[in-house]
C-alpha cells in the first residue's frame, strides 16, 4: 500500500512539475475563471437581484467550468509522443496511476479555486472570512467527488475524437448532484443560516465521494488495459 501511494505521488509530482515549468494551463484557467466571474457580473441586474442571492450559483458555475477545462488536460498531456504507453509500461500499478492523476488534478483544481474564491468575494461583495472554514470544507467535499469521476472519464475521452466536447457531456450529469448539494450548503452559509439545515445534503455529498472515489479506483484499469 505504501508503494502504491509513493508511486502515486511520483506521478502526481511529474504532472505538477510539467505544469509548473510551462505554466500555460494554470494561467489560462486562472484567466478563464476571472473572465467567467466578469461575465456573471454583466449577466445580472444589480438593482433587481441581490448579489448574495446569486452568489452560490456564480461560485459553483465558475468552479464547474474551470474544473472541466483542467480535467481534460490530465490525459491529453500523455497523448503526445505516446507518453501514456510509457506510463503503462512503467513498473507502477494501475491504481497508483489513477491516484497520481487524481492527486494532480485535485491540486490543480484547488489552486484554481483558491484564485477564484477571493476574486469572487471581491467582485460580488460577499464577506467570506467568517464562513471561510466551513465553506472550504464544502468546496473540498464537492471537488473530491467530481474530480474523481472526471479523472476516470478523461482517461476515456482523451482517446476519442471529440475529447473537449465529450468530457463535459459525460461529466455534467455526474457533477450535478454534488453541485446541487454544494449550492444549497453554500447558500445556507452565505445567508448566515445554520449548516444543520442542509445536513442531509452534506451527508449525501460525503456518500457520493466515498462511492465514486472507490468506484473510479476499481474501474480505472478497465479504461487503460487492453
Amino acid at each position: 500500500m505504501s508503494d502504491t501511494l509513493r508511486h502515486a505521488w511520483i506521478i502526481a509530482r511529474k504532472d505538477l512539475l510539467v505544469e509548473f515549468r510551462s505554466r500555460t494551463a494554470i494561467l489560462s484557467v486562472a484567466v478563464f475563471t476571472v473572465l467567467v466571474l466578469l461575465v456573471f457580473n454583466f449577466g445580472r441586474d444589480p438593482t433587481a437581484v441581490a448579489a448574495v442571492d446569486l452568489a452560490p450559483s456564480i461560485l459553483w458555475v465558475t468552479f464547474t467550468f474551470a474544473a472541466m477545462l483542467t480535467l481534460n488536460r490530465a490525459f491529453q498531456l500523455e497523448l503526445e509522443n505516446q507518453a501514456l504507453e510509457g506510463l503503462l509500461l512503467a513498473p507502477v500499478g494501475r491504481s497508483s496511476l489513477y491516484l497520481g492523476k487524481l492527486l494532480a488534478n485535485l491540486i490543480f483544481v484547488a489552486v484554481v479555486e483558491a484564485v477564484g474564491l477571493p476574486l469572487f468575494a471581491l467582485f460580488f461583495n460577499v464577506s467570506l472570512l467568517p464562513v471561510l472554514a466551513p465553506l472550504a470544507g464544502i468546496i473540498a467535499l464537492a471537488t473530491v467527488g467530481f474530480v474523481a469521476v472526471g479523472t476516470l472519464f478523461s482517461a476515456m475521452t482523451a482517446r476519442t475524437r471529440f475529447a473537449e466536447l465529450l468530457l463535459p457531456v459525460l461529466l455534467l450529469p455526474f457533477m450535478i448532484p454534488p453541485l446541487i448539494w454544494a449550492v444549497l450548503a453554500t447558500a445556507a452559509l452565505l445567508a448566515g443560516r445554520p449548516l444543520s439545515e442542509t445536513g442531509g445534503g452534506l451527508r449525501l455529498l460525503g456518500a457520493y465521494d466515498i462511492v465514486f472515489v472507490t468506484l473510479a479506483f476499481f474501474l480505472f484499469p478497465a479504461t487503460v488495459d487492453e
Partner: protein
Amino acid sequence: MKLLRAGRWITAVGFVLLAGVYLRALAFTPVERSQGLAQKIFYLHVPAAIWAETAMVLVGLASVFYLFLKDPRLDRFAEASAEVGTVFAAIVLTTGPIWGKPIWGTWWSWDARLTFTLFLFLLYAGYLLLRGAVADPGARRRYAAVLGICGMCLVPFIHFSVYLFRTLHPMPIVLKPSAPSLPGSMLATWLFSLSVFTLLYVAFVMQRYALGLLREPPAEGGGLHA
C-alpha cells in the same frame, strides 16, 4: 435472424395490447375525480418511467458482468437496453408535460422528478455518444461498461437528491411501502399497462440486440447465429 423476427412479432403483439390498454383506460376505467381525463396518462407515464429506470440498472449490471467475463453478448445487451431506455425516458419526458399543462398550468417546472428523468435521459445520451465516439470495438466495450456502471451508481444519488426538494409531483401511489391507494379497476388497468410495457421492452431489446449483431463484422460477432 430468428431473434429479429421473434422481436418483431412480440412488438406487434405488444402494440396490439397497447391499443387494448388505451381502450381499457379510456372506456372501462373510471375517470379520476380531481384530475379528470388528464389522469389517464398515468397508465402510460408510470410504466414507461419504471422501465426507463430499470433499463439503466440493467445496463449497469450487464456492464459489471462484461468487465469480468468479457462476453460481447453482455455488451450488446447493454447497448440495446440503453437505447430502449432512452426511448422510454423520452416517453416519460413527453407525457409528463402533456399532463402538467392542464394540472399544474405549466408545461415544465423544475420539479424534482422531472429533473431526475431529464438527467436519466442525458445519462443515456452521454452513454450512446461515448459508444459512437470510440472507433476501436474493444475500447468501446470497456469504456461503455465503465460509464454504464457509473451511471447505475448515479441513479440512487439523483433519486435521493430529488427527495430533498419540495415537489409538485404526485407522490407514489403504487410502488410504496403500504398498499396501493387507488381503486381496484385503476390498479388493474395500470398493471395491465405495466405488463405491456415489459413486453415492449423485451421485444425492443431483442430487435436492437439482433441489429447490433448484424452490424458487427462476422469474424468478431461469431457468425450470425443468435
